[in-house]
């Protein structure tokens, strides 16, 4: 699975939870489901690509103006169709 699929596999079962790019990178690396560790920048690029595909939504945390990401309904549909692989 590639990084984009894993991001969907992390966010979908946790919906509506919204995470920062750093949190997502840290959790994906902890899961050891990637061949090599991912950086926050790589996660950020993948999230932006998913955003263009309408699979994730970008929101701003009003408390500290940080960006947080949440999976969309489209993203969840894709996750279900692909077998609900879950990043634990």
């Amino acid at each position, binding site marked *: 699975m590639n990084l984009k699929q894993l991001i969907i596999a992390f966010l979908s079962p*946790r919906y509506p939870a*919204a995470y920062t790019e750093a949190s997502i990178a840290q959790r994906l690396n902890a899961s050891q489901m990637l061949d090599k560790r991912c950086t926050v920048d790589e996660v950020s690029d993948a999230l932006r690509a998913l955003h263009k595909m309408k699979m994730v939504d970008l*929101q701003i*945390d009003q408390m500290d103006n940080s960006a*947080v990401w949440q999976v969309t309904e489209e993203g969840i549909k894709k996750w279900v169709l*692909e077998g609900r692989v*879950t990043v634990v």
Partner: protein
Amino acid sequence: MNTRCYRSKIGRLPFAIRNELNERIRDGAQGAELLDWLNGLKETKKVLREMKSGPVNAQNLTDWRSSGYNDWLEDQKDADRIRRLAEVSQTLAAAAGGNVAGIGCSIATAKIMDALESADDDKIADLSTALVKLRAGENAAQKVALAEEKNALAKEQLELSRAKFERDTTRLFIKWAQSKDALALATDKRLGSDEKTERLGRLMFGDLWEGAKDGR
């Protein structure tokens, strides 16, 4: 996990086909039926050609049940567990005052999720029990508040009725104080209190007075 690398015939099939195979096994499909379906797929034929191997057989399917299928079942359990935790987290975030549809609640949900995911199942069960009790307590408190509200309304209604009664009585007094007949009855020293009441009642209310006496 489904990202594991499987080297068997079935393991080399595309992800979507392996996933459908797992779902069919879970739903109780029989071996022969599964083999017919699998071996009929062009993707399977392609993999078998590349492996220079014969069709997928019953032994391959048995091996898959004890490896890939078992892994897939575990993955489904993980997904269900995470999903349940997400629901508990969202409930907690909402109970803390978050707007369920708002991003603040989603961020809080994520933070609670982080905590819950690192907790063991016993602690999560305790938390769920506490949540149920909290909800039951809230319901009881709401019932008490509702009963108090009803009592307050009834009291207010009573006050209004009393005020109306006093106003109406005062108006009647003013009206009948100007009546010579009523004044004569009220001041007649030959009549007792009961008799005065009876006569004045008949004068003021006519037939209604008789009705009131009979309890009609």
